[in-house]
C-alpha cells in the first residue's frame, strides 16, 4: 500500500511538471488547472505516505536519507504551493515540480526499510529541528529556481534576444521580489533550525555547539544568506547579484544536506 502511494506521488508530480510545461504553450486554462490539480493531489498523497509511515514506525519519518529525501520534496512542494497561490507563475511550476520529482525519484532508489529509531534521536526535538531545517531548505530551493529564472530573463532583456521564453517568464521585478521574500523566510527558519538543534544538543549531550561538519556547514550557509540580506539592505545588491547569491547559497545548502553526510562523518551521520 505504502509503496503504491509513494509511486503515485512520483507520477502525480511528473504529470504536474508536464502540465505546467504544456501550459506554457497552450492558451487553454484547463491545462493550467490540471497542473495545479495534480500538484495538490500529489501533495495530499505525499502527506498520506508520511502519516502512514509515522504510524507504522511510531516515530516521525526523518531518521534516514530515504525519509529525509521524501520530507525534502514534501516541503518544497508545500513552499511552492504557497508561492503559487499568490503568484501564478507556470514556468516556476515546471522547475520546482521537476526538482521535486527528481528528489522523489532519487529517494525511491534508496533503502526504504523501517528500522528502529536510534536512541540518540528519540526526542521530541527531532521533529521540531528537522522540520524547521527542511522548510528552510525548501525555501532556498525555490529561491534557487527563481534565481536561475531571473538570470535567464535578465540575460534576455539585456542582450535584447527576446526569445520564446521571454514572453512566458514573469517580470524581473516580481522574480527579484519573491526571491528576496522567500530567502527572508528561509533565513528565519534556518536560524530557528540551528537554534533548536543547538538546544537539543545541549539537552542530549550537554554541548551547545560541537563543530560537527554539519553544524559548521549550516553556519556557512547561514552566513551566506546573512550576507545576501545584508548586502541587499545596505548596498542595494538586488537583481542579478542577488540571484547569483541565491544560487551560491543553495549549493551550500545542498552540501550541508547531502555533501556532509556523504563525505564526512560526524554527529549527523544517520542522514
Amino acid at each position: 500500500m505504502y509503496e503504491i502511494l509513494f509511486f503515485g506521488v512520483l507520477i502525480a508530480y511528473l504529470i504536474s511538471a508536464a502540465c505546467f510545461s504544456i501550459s506554457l504553450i497552450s492558451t487553454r486554462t484547463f491545462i493550467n488547472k490540471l497542473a495545479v490539480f495534480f500538484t495538490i493531489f500529489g501533495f495530499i498523497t505525499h502527506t498520506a505516505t508520511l502519516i502512514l509511515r509515522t504510524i507504522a514506525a511510531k516515530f516521525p519519518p526523518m531518521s534516514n536519507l530515504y525519509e529525509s529525501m521524501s520530507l525534502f520534496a514534501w516541503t518544497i512542494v508545500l513552499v511552492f504551493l504557497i508561492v503559487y497561490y499568490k503568484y501564478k507563475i507556470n514556468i516556476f511550476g515546471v522547475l520546482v515540480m521537476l526538482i521535486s520529482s527528481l528528489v522523489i525519484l532519487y529517494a525511491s532508489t534508496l533503502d526504504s526499510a523501517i528500522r528502529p529509531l536510534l536512541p540518540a534521536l528519540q526526542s521530541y526535538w527531532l521533529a521540531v529541528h528537522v522540520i524547521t531545517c527542511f522548510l528552510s531548505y525548501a525555501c532556498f530551493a525555490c529561491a534557487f529556481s527563481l534565481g536561475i529564472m531571473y538570470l535567464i530573463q535578465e540575460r534576455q532583456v539585456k542582450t535584447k534576444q527576446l526569445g520564446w521564453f521571454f514572453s512566458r517568464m514573469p517580470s524581473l521585478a516580481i522574480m527579484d521580489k519573491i526571491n528576496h521574500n522567500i530567502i527572508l523566510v528561509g533565513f528565519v527558519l534556518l536560524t530557528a533550525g540551528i537554534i533548536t538543534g543547538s538546544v537539543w544538543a545541549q539537552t542530549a549531550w550537554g554541548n551547545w555547539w560541537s563543530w560537527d561538519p554539519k553544524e559548521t556547514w549550516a553556519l556557512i550557509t547561514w552566513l551566506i544568506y546573512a550576507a545576501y540580506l545584508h548586502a541587499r539592505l545596505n548596498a542595494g545588491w538586488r537583481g542579478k547579484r542577488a540571484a547569483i547569491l541565491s544560487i551560491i547559497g543553495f549549493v551550500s545548502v545542498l552540501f550541508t544536506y547531502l555533501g556532509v553526510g556523504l563525505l564526512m562523518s560526524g554527529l549527523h551521520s544517520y542522514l
Partner: protein
Amino acid sequence: MMNIELIGISHKTAPIEIRERLSFSNGSLEKALCLLIQNSGIKEGVILSTCNRVEIYAFGDNGCSLSSCLTDFLSMFHDINKDDFQNHLYSLRGLSAIRHLFRVSSSLDSQVLGENQILGQIKTAYFKAKDVMALSSQGAFLFEEAIKLGKRVRSQTQIGYGAVSISTAAVEMTKKIFEDLSQKKVLIIGAGKIGELSVRHLYDRGVEVVLVANRTKARAQDLANKFNGKAVDFSKVTEVLKEADIVICSVSSPHLLVTKSQVVEIMGQRKQRPVFFIDLGLPRNIDPQINDLDNVYVYNLDDLKKVKDVNLRERLKEAEKIESIIDECLHKISGRVNNA
C-alpha cells in the same frame, strides 16, 4: 440554400480618399440598410463601415447575381460615379464571401494583424442590421458564426499577444522589468511623438509621476498638463534623473545626453533600484554602454523595433493556425451555401 454576396473596399485596395467617400456614418447607416433591402432580390443585408473598410453583405434569392446591384446601390447612395471606385472594389460570393467575413472577424484582414476592434465593429454592424429588420435567419446565423469565431480565435490562439508598435513595445518592456507601474516615475526628455505616445500608454497603466523636460518650456508644460505631471527646467535634467525609474529620451542633439559615469553615480544614490532608458533619439541620446550596468536597461529605436517584429512574427504564425480553423468552420457549413 444560402445565397450570399459581398462587395467592399479596404485599406488593402483603396486609399483613404476613396474609403472616406464611400463610408457610412453612424447616422446614415439605418437609412442605407433600409434602402438596401428594398432592392429586389436582396432579402437581407449588413453594412460594415470602419475607417479601414466599407463592406456590404447581401443575402438574396438563388440564381440571381447581386454584385452589380450592390455597386449601383453604393454609387447611388454616396452619389459617386461608379467608375471612380470600381477598380478598388472587391466582390465575392458564396463560400469565398463567407471566408472573407471569417477572416475579417478574426482580424486576419486587419491593418494591424490581431487587433481587437474589428470584432466589436462587426457586432455593432450586426446589431444595427438586426434593429432595422435587415437581418433574418440566414444572415443572422452567418454573422453570429463570424462573431463566435472571432471570440474563439482570440481565446484559443495568441493572435492578440505581444506589442506590435514601437510605443506599445516600450510599454511591454517596461512591464517586463517593473511589473507594477503604480509607484513608478517617468521622466520624458524632449517632446517627440512616439515619446508622447509611450508616456500616454504608461500613464494609462498608472505610473505615479510624469516629469517633462523640454528645451521649450511652454511645450514641456503643455505635455505635463496632459499627464497630470510636472514640467522641469531643461538645465535641471541631471538633478531629476536619479528620481526617475523610466526615462524616455527623444531630443535632437549631436552629443550624448546621459553618460555612463553619470548613471553609475545615480545607481549608487538609488541603491540599485532598476532604471529603464528608452532612447528614441536619432542620433542616440543615451550612451548604449549604460546597458552593461547592473539593473539598468537601455532600449533604442532599433531594439524596440526588434521587439515589435518578433511579436509580429509570432502573430503571423498564429494567423496560419486561424486559417485552418476557418477552413474547418467553412467545411461545416458548406452544405448550406450556394456556391455556384
